[in-house]
């Protein structure tokens, strides 16, 4: 006989089954719900990224003017073979490497230096934090146009200023000289982007426990030793982030170069993105331009992968 308040077994079992089943419905929802959240982004990603990438890869195997599919012609790997003989393509790759090396290094060094300086709470630190960040939010096209005018040998400000300072021998066509065109564009890109690096470093610095520095100081560490043995290792994850962000941004940079030099003079500042654009949209060689785009995509992917592998060591940098 069942005790008072208890149910007979014949009733208890179905009820228990029902209770067991109830969570299984919730489990289904738990499984479905993430996909529901991801779905809009997935659709967006598919339409605006995956399909164009696949389309670009496919078109790279065709000869096509890009005007009408009536004229499209399968050429297999011909576009890729032609790339190997294209001097400007190799020149563009070389310039991309210069851009990454020069731009990334400068942004990391300048950003880190200013971040450490501004974190010393010197007078005006807040003001300069804001000022240094302003270029980052400016349109690249606007930045390019402003600097093109500033650097113009005839109408600009830089050369007259140099002459006023008695440095007239340095005055030149900054964007019209093959020796200075690329470094000048790199410098403008650094000016525009160091603020972002600086802010990321500041965020990283704020995350370091001040007690570590105090302990080091008590132990007799100099500021220089603290910087190299505490700050830098603990900032390593931020440094990796800045390096990866900067190099990807640099590889895909187009607008600034196009506005300032259009890849010139005579390809002296041509990079893969501008060469891809010229081939596809100016010379009506959409297949060839797509092949350049595919190479750029592969390079970006490999570059990022290598960086992640190289930098994926102990995030504390071994600082104990």
């Amino acid at each position, binding site marked *: 006989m069942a005790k008072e308040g208890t149910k007979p077994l014949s009733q208890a079992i179905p009820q228990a089954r029902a209770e067991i089943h109830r969570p299984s419905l919730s489990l289904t929802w738990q499984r479905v719900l993430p996909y529901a959240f991801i779905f809009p982004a997935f659709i967006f990603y598919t339409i605006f990224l995956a399909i164009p990438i696949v389309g670009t890869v496919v078109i790279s195997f065709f000869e096509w003017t890009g005007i009408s599919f009536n004229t499209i012609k399968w050429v297999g790997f011909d576009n890729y073979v032609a790339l190997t003989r294209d001097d400007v393509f190799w020149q563009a790759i070389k310039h991309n490497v210069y851009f990454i090396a020069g731009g990334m290094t400068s942004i990391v060094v300048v950003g880190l230096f200013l971040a450490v300086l501004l974190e010393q709470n010197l007078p005006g630190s807040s003001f300069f934090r804001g000022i240094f960040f302003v270029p980052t939010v400016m349109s690249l096209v606007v930045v390019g146009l402003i600097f093109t005018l500033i650097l113009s040998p005839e*109408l600009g400000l830089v050369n007259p200023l140099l002459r006023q300072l008695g440095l007239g021998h340095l005055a030149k066509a900054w964007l019209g000289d093959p020796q200075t065109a690329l470094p000048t564009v790199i410098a403008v890109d650094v000016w525009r982007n160091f603020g972002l690096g600086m802010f990321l470093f500041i965020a990283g610095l704020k995350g370091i426990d001040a007690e570590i520095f105090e302990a080091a100081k008590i132990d007799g560490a100099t500021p220089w030793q603290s910087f190299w043995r505490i700050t830098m290792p603990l900032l390593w994850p931020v440094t990796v982030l800045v390096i990866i962000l900067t190099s990807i941004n640099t590889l895909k940079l187009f607008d600034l170069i196009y506005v300032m030099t259009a890849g*010139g003079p005579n390809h002296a500042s041509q990079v893969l993105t501008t060469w891809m654009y*010229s081939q596809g949209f100016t010379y009506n060689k959409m297949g060839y331009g797509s092949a350049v785009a595919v190479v750029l995509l592969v390079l970006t992917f490999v570059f990022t992968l290598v960086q992640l592998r190289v930098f994926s060591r102990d995030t504390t940098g071994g600082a104990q």
Partner: protein
Amino acid sequence: MKQVLPFFITITLASWTLAQDVIELSFWTEWSADPTRTIGETLIAKFNEEHPNIRVTHRPIENEQFFTVLRTGFTSGEPPDVFQHEANNNLLQFVVPGEVEDISDWYAANGDRFQPGTDAAISYDGKQYGVPTGIATGTQIYYNAALLEENGIDPKALQTWDDYLAAFEKLKAAGVTPIAYANKFGWPGSQWFYAFLTRWVGAEKVNQLVARNCGYAWTDPDIVEAAQLYVDLADKGYFSSGMSSDDYPQATAIFFAGRAAFFHTGSWFIGETAADMPEGFALGMNRFPDIEGGKGNTDTFMAVLGGYAISKKGAEDPAKREAALTFIDWMTQVPQAQEFVKGAGSMSTVEGAVTPEVADPLVLQIIEEQINGNTGAVGFLEHVTPKAVGEDAIWMGSVGVLTGQLTAQTWMESVEEAAAAEAPTLVLEPACE
């Protein structure tokens, strides 16, 4: 309520029916800056007013990006219904893949309103794919008359290239920049080169060269000599210092600011002066001179033809085609064509549009000195050669020789290499016998 509802339904249906009757036409042009922008938009507004069943929507696009945007429109399947073109290859790139409407029927009935001979550059395979509306020449040199006078130079006494070289030297010695020049994108440099080619080897050889006829090559000694004439200007320091980095608007600014005495560019510059030239600026113009020893002469000129065309999409149904033709027909009538002659210094191809009453004296001067009685013409090379030749090898090379990256010889070698790799897109001259 019962009385109001049918009223609203009737109004809505009537509006919908009316809206259905209005044919929408998109029209893309290079009229992105004044004076052409204002003239164009005023005319379009007038057309829309006079034709309530047609609504033309204008999209002005900046000159240097125009054909890229236009091509992207065709690629995406959303081209304009009616668009501007610059004839020859510039139009044929859309004609050959079958994207432009054949309007031979309309042209047969109305083509006599245009100057004779202007239809060749817009026809293909015996069919007419557009209308010519204007011609722009590139064989003239503008000058700042006041600046020349200050330096003791009589512009009308400049008859030969040697006269110009002497004038450049005199200006340079006086500390005045002889020529305002900005070749960032390469096309202004190519215009100098074409002018030298036309004068040094003659129009006939240039046209045969473009068609890859007669065994001519870009590396022929006389072609390289023509290139050298251009390179010499840079080597002697006659160009403004931003020659390889400034762009066309900067060159016009330098010229209008009185910081250089000469400016070589197309006849479109006459229209630009209306909007940009400072008051009191003493603008003068000479045709590009003869060069001693050259086979060409001042009776030949280089030019580009502009006009309108209808895309296949713009003719997808008979009513739309009719509307597009109505628009083109209206735009190419004398009163409308004269608006561009008056306000923008255009050299209209519409018969009777360019008259002394409405045309700028410089336009009349070009017509008298260069077009009437000419013995030959050369198209702008980027429009009669494959893009890899005209827009890459020639344009980029014209910058490269300024910076010392190339010499006249290596520049022409790169042009020849590009030309040899591409089939000629236009055959303008009969093959050599």
